[in-house]
């Protein structure tokens, strides 16, 4: 199906939000959403890596298809992601030590963030064109960032309240995520109503 760019964008950003509706990038969503300062850095790093690796894997996929080597997709994609992460890390370390201090810890974690691997996989299985892939990568990683940043601020706020000791920790985070996810259900069918 030939999807319009705006639709791909809204769909990946809100309707089928990567985190809240498709359950991708869960570990970091739960583990790194405790502090706003961590969350936004993680969000930005993920956005960068997703967009770069999406572009790289689009090109790689063309090569794989050309040589009928689709069975190497998973392994090449993960290598591309690992390489992107590694190169980004080195690049930031060289150019901006301050930025590296801020982001450095989060970058290696991105390799095992399934949201990052999911983007190239989805864009391949959905036969997106290059432009569609880029839009999809931006929207999907943007959706991830929105979710993790929102959750982190909500959690910072909850930190100031008297949460019963039993519920502290992951369970409470999950309940918050559940309510957020219910709220995102309001976007279902967006752009398709008329």
């Amino acid at each position, binding site marked *: *199906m030939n999807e319009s760019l705006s639709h791909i964008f809204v769909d990946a950003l809100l309707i089928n939000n990567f985190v809240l509706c498709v359950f991708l990038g869960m570990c970091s969503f739960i583990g790194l959403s405790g502090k706003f300062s961590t969350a936004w850095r993680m969000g930005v790093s993920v956005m960068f890596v997703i967009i770069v690796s999406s572009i790289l894997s689009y090109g790689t996929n063309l090569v794989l298809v050309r040589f009928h080597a689709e*069975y190497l997709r998973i*392994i090449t994609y993960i290598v591309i992601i690992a390489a992107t992460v590694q190169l980004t890390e080195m690049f930031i370390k060289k150019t901006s030590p301050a930025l590296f201090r801020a982001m450095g810890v989060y970058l290696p974690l991105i390799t095992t963030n399934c949201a990052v691997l999911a983007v190239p996989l989805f864009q391949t299985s959905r036969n997106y064109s290059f432009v569609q892939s880029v839009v999809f990568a931006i929207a999907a990683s943007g959706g991830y960032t929105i979710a993790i940043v929102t959750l982190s601020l909500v959690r910072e706020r909850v930190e100031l309240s008297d949460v019963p000791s039993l519920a502290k920790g992951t369970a409470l985070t999950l309940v918050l995520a559940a309510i957020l996810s219910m709220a995102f259900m309001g976007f279902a*069918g967006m752009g398709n109503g008329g």
Partner: protein
Amino acid sequence: MTNSWQMIRLLGAVSLLCGLLIVGTQVNTAARIRSNQETIMRESVARLLPGIEKQIVYGIQPSGDLIILPGIEVSGPRFFAGYDAAGNFLGVVMEASERGYADVISAMYSYSPDTRTITGFQVIDMKETPGLGNKISSDLPFLENFKHLDATRPIATVKHGAKKNPWEIDAISGATISSRAVGRMLQKSVAEVAPVIERNLDRIKRGQ
């Protein structure tokens, strides 16, 4: 120096091992996967065209011509023609998809070029709301719509209980969006494929 050389050698060995394993698996499973996919398709088509014994997959070229596809590997514009044991033409089965409430709904439907009606409809994949939208695959009164759906006119979805004409689809109450998506999908697909079938009907009937 020796250290990096050692590293490269090791990585090479690892890649070789991985490559061998992957290729081995791929080679060993390819036939099985293919037959699995064929079976599923065949079963879906058979469910829509009862009494089918033989089926041909036609691909539609950009020029509008038909070619017979070797199997179901090749995606793109295509349809299935079904024949009974005696080789009589039963009808065609087409694939269609459309955005529903939650995500894309993809479906198959059978179409009779002789009467220009849709004779059956089956959802293949969807993520519609359980209990509401997902009734499009199970709600019997709704599926009743597609036993004889007139496709000579633009197919339209009307609200529950308001169906008056044979080309209208009676929507599921409370699942308007999903029902409409089905109507839109059929309407678009028929408009696209029916003329091609019409033009090549003789050839299809002969099974060439």
